[in-house]
């Protein structure tokens, strides 16, 4: 995890702590290896129940299985509930004959058979905690949320994104207000502004669990229901959520999902090993201003627009450098605030044409694609100050300019 991701996480935990305190409870953060922590604290604190979100990543699936075993051994109940995804992915697999749908269309068809996801649970109130004994004040200090200095990362995050449910909910409200375009039914064309850090972007809040995907789903459904025309399924509005669900489902049922070797859905391609070029891509030194501006924003802020992700992912793999998507995935894992096991690997495989095949593969041109999105090059000027005064005509291809 990069420093920006840590900051986001810590901010999220602080926010959770603050909100719980307002309800008369509090958050205790215990650091250490999970089995050790449980063994130490079960008896000490008389713990009778451990709850966790149902997990899909292999590491966490194993963790859940281990915790269940510990539960039998040490005598506590283990409760796991579907929280990360809209649906219980096992049901999606069952309806598709035990295997995950590998095309989005097929996936949508299966979802239509499932009907709507479960409604989100109601909010917590102070009454919910009245029967709980508050923990000793001393404990709160001992098990506080770690500070940046504890993790040896820089004190401040320079990213405009702040973690936490409070911030997430504010953005959610703003996002829904902005959905005014829904009623006029025109899809927003990608405008240069949308490449800039979004004030209504929600992806890091979903991936860290600050916001519930089901809450968002139902809020969007309500808006849609109020709009005048009903001819289209709300696929396009809830697209972000459904793509996420798609990748979660595939990942949950595919071994070695984050690797090429041993991954049954991934094409085995003879990528080049080129540490130097990979480094140049990672550090925004490819010489293509469009690519370098995107990689600069990624490093500085931890978020880039999804079209920007397409551009740099294609560039690294199928488009220009022919380097393995696994390398790109690792860089995104480090730098992206919303990096997610399933979505990251899934998209990298998609963009490198390693899986999820269309009939025709699309390659994004590192010059032309940027020009279409932002003809005046404002985005490049912002993130590559060295090109601030470069004429728009050449800013995407500086090598074509005369001396």
């Amino acid at each position: 995890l990069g420093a920006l991701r840590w900051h986001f996480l810590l901010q999220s935990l602080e926010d959770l702590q603050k909100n719980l305190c307002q309800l008369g409870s509090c958050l205790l953060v215990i650091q250490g290896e999970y089995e050790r922590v449980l063994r130490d604290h079960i008896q000490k604190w008389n713990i009778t129940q451990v709850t966790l979100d149902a997990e899909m990543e292999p590491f966490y699936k194993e963790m859940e299985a281990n915790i269940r075993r510990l539960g039998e051994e040490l005598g506590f109940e283990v409760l796991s509930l579907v929280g990360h995804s809209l649906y219980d992915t096992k049901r999606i697999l069952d309806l598709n004959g035990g295997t995950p749908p590998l095309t989005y269309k097929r996936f949508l068809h299966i979802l239509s058979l499932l009907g709507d996801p479960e409604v989100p649970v109601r909010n917590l109130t102070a009454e919910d905690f009245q029967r709980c004994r508050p923990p000793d004040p001393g404990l709160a200090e001992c098990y506080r949320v770690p500070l940046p200095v504890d993790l040896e990362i820089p004190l401040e995050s320079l990213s405009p994104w702040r973690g936490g449910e409070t911030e997430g909910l504010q953005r959610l409200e703003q996002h829904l207000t902005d959905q005014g375009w829904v009623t006029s039914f025109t899809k927003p064309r990608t405008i240069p502004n949308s490449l800039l850090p979004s004030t209504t972007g929600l992806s890091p809040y979903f991936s860290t669990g600050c916001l519930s995907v089901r809450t968002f789903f139902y809020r969007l459904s309500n808006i849609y229901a109020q709009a005048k025309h009903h001819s289209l399924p709300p696929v396009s509005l809830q697209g972000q959520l459904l793509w996420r669900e798609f990748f979660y489902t595939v990942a949950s049922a595919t071994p070695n999902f984050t690797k090429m070797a041993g991954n049954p859905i991934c094409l085995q391609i003879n990528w080049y090993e080129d540490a130097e070029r990979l480094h140049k891509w990672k550090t925004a030194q490819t010489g293509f201003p469009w690519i370098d501006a995107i990689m600069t924003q990624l490093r500085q802020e931890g978020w880039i627009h999804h079209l920007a992700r397409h551009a740099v992912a294609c560039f690294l793999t199928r488009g220009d450098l022919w380097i393995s998507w696994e390398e790109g995935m690792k860089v995104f894992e480090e730098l992206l605030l919303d990096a997610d096991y399933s979505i990251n690997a899934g998209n990298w495989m998609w963009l490198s044409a390693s899986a999820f095949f269309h009939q025709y593969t699309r390659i994004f041109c590192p010059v032309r694609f940027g020009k279409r999105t932002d003809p005046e090059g404002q985005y490049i000027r912002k993130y590559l100050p060295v090109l601030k005064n470069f004429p728009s005509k050449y800013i995407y291809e500086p090598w074509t300019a005369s001396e």
Partner: protein
Amino acid sequence: MKRGRKTNDANSSSSEETTEKESKRHKVLDKQTIAVQSPDWANLLQDIILQVFQYLPLLDRAHASQVCRSWNQVFHMPDLWRCFEFELNQPATSYLRATHPELIKQIIKRHSNHLQYVSFKVDSSKESAEAACDILSQLVNCSLKTLGLISTARPSFMDLPKSHFISALTVVFVNSKSLSSLKIDDTPVDDPSLKVLVANNSDTLKLLKMSSCPHVSPAGILCVADQCHGLRELALNYHLLSDELLLALSSEKHVRLEHLRIDVVSENPGQTQFHTIQKSSWDAFIKHSPKVNLVMYFFLYEEEFDPFFRYEIPVTHLYFGRSVSKDVLGRVGMTCPRLVELVVCANGLRPLDEELIRIAERCKYLSAVGLGECEVSCSAFVEFVKMCGGRLSQLSIMEEVLIPDQKYSLEQIHWEVSKHLGRVWFPDMMPTW
């Protein structure tokens, strides 16, 4: 097993004293007794083992061959060595496994005369290409029917000294004498080696794929067309195409061509001058082979399309790998009546409404369309689909291609298009990352 044998011996010694009938009965009984005891894997008929082995991947077969002598014999039977794919990757730079060098040695030693259908998958390193040539040079007792040289990454055969490659390839050409299918794209094959190919295999050659072979000249490929009258599939670059070639492929002695693929490639804008082909040559070509698939891949810069689509051309599958202008697409509509599949990677940003509608009107066989970075208004797109109707079995349109207008929004268009196609249709969506 031993027990079984002992019983046999015991019986055969006593059978001398009994009648023939009785001894037969004893023998039948023995077989039954043996069958009731544990089945003898080693005595399994070799034909059966061979059948089973044919289902196993090589590694599993190799393991099985270590079990006993009989199974080992089956492992080396010619039928299991007719097809082989040599995978040559350098471990230092490749993600993929390579065929074990020991196995390669064994094959050359014991099975080279069994090999008939061979391919080489080679990574981007020169060593792998050299290793492939090394093996080829040793296939002296081989009578190959198919040979494929496949570059899985950057073409490394081109890094070899030309003579080295040619001499290795010639070994196969001379020894095989019944080559039917040859794939040598991205290799330094040249005119003289094609002559050798023709001298030895003219009666049997049916398929020849040699895209991106820069050392071959139009005369070289013409020699192949002139002599190999059974040639049914050919793939080459545009610079090798000539009027003479098309006429040679259409001569009375020549079979009907089934598949002709032409790659029109330009590395740097303005660098290559593309010659023109006479309309009469295409006419003769199509008259001789009316059902041929003519596949053309264009990797040109927008300003280089001048010589093309000026008159009717019998192309069936058309792929524009780079950006192509509205003007050229307009000409395509006018000149390609046999068009079956059209893929456009990108276009300047003006809507292709008229051009698409013209294509729907005039290309009555069009059944597959793919549009990448283009723009089409929703109304025009619906009109296009309406005109083509259900014959469009493949319609891959990126979501961003469709521009909503007064008549249709994006949400409505999927419904309209589905109606006209007679099946549920959505544009291609890239994931929202």
